[in-house]
């Protein structure tokens, strides 16, 4: 099973081989979960979104185009699932203002972690439409073309949303005044 490509596995799964689909789940579980976690900011919700995304992928496997990458397709499904969850809950975690900054210089590592946590919160404060492109581009390293395909947008729309997301982050993080 290890030597098979994703396309081989998809083809086998489309013919009803469950073990082929199980291997696809294993291969893409981490990336799918990572996107869900960055989109939703909550482990439990991310796990639900990941599971739902794979079950939906199985249901829609017949419509999967052989020329597309399975990974991009999974990005699309999980991002849509996350957007639906965000719209359903419509709550954003506030930036934890009550945290204390690291007190001493030896806490530089803690400070760096603190800043990364702030960045996570700032990402969660982006609009869902901005968050998807930003997560896929800056955290998953997707190309503009992949993001456009995953989010069913034109490349110019991806660039526009990403541009706004980046500027929002800069403002939110206080990197630019």
């Amino acid at each position, binding site marked *: 099973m290890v030597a098979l490509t994703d396309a081989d596995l998809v083809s086998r799964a489309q013919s009803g081989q*469950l073990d082929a*689909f*199980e291997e696809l*789940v*294993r291969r893409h*579980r*981490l990336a*799918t*979960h*990572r996107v869900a*976690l*960055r989109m939703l900011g909550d482990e439990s919700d991310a*796990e639900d979104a*990941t*599971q739902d995304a*794979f*079950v939906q992928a*199985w*249901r829609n496997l017949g419509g999967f185009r052989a020329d597309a990458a399975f990974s991009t397709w999974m990005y699309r499904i999980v991002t849509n699932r996350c957007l639906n969850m965000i719209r359903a809950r419509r709550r954003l975690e506030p930036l934890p203002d009550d945290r204390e900054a690291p007190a001493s210089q030896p806490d530089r590592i803690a400070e*760096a972690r603190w*800043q*990364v946590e702030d*960045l*996570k919160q700032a990402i969660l404060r982006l609009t869902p439409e901005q968050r998807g492109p930003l997560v896929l581009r*800056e*955290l*998953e*390293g997707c190309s503009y073309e992949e993001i456009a395909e995953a989010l069913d947008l034109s490349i110019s729309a991806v660039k*526009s949303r990403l*541009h*706004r997301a*980046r*500027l929002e*982050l*800069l*403002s939110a*993080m206080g*990197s*630019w005044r």
Partner: protein
Amino acid sequence: MGRGLPPLPCGADLDALVAQVADGVPGDLAHQAGCPHCQAALAQIEELWSLAGQLARERVEAPDRIDVVVMGRIQRAILTGKVIELFGGLLPRLGWALLTYGGLVERGVSR
């Protein structure tokens, strides 16, 4: 591109500096070499993108149970589909038979 951040005092477009750091778009290096505003802005943008890089590299664990739960849900869906396929045609007929029988019994009772 929608609303952007104001230009720097030197007139440089901050959006272009962001694109330079984030996408590797070539910038006006000659100007930037002698411009404290651009240098300060670039340093701040680079700091933020460095944080984004740290976040991208942060180790994320996907629970192993995801595989088990997903495959369990799929197997149950397949089984449910087979059961519906098997009995789907039978149930309406059974329902109709029960209604008919009920009607006959009711008529018998009323007589």
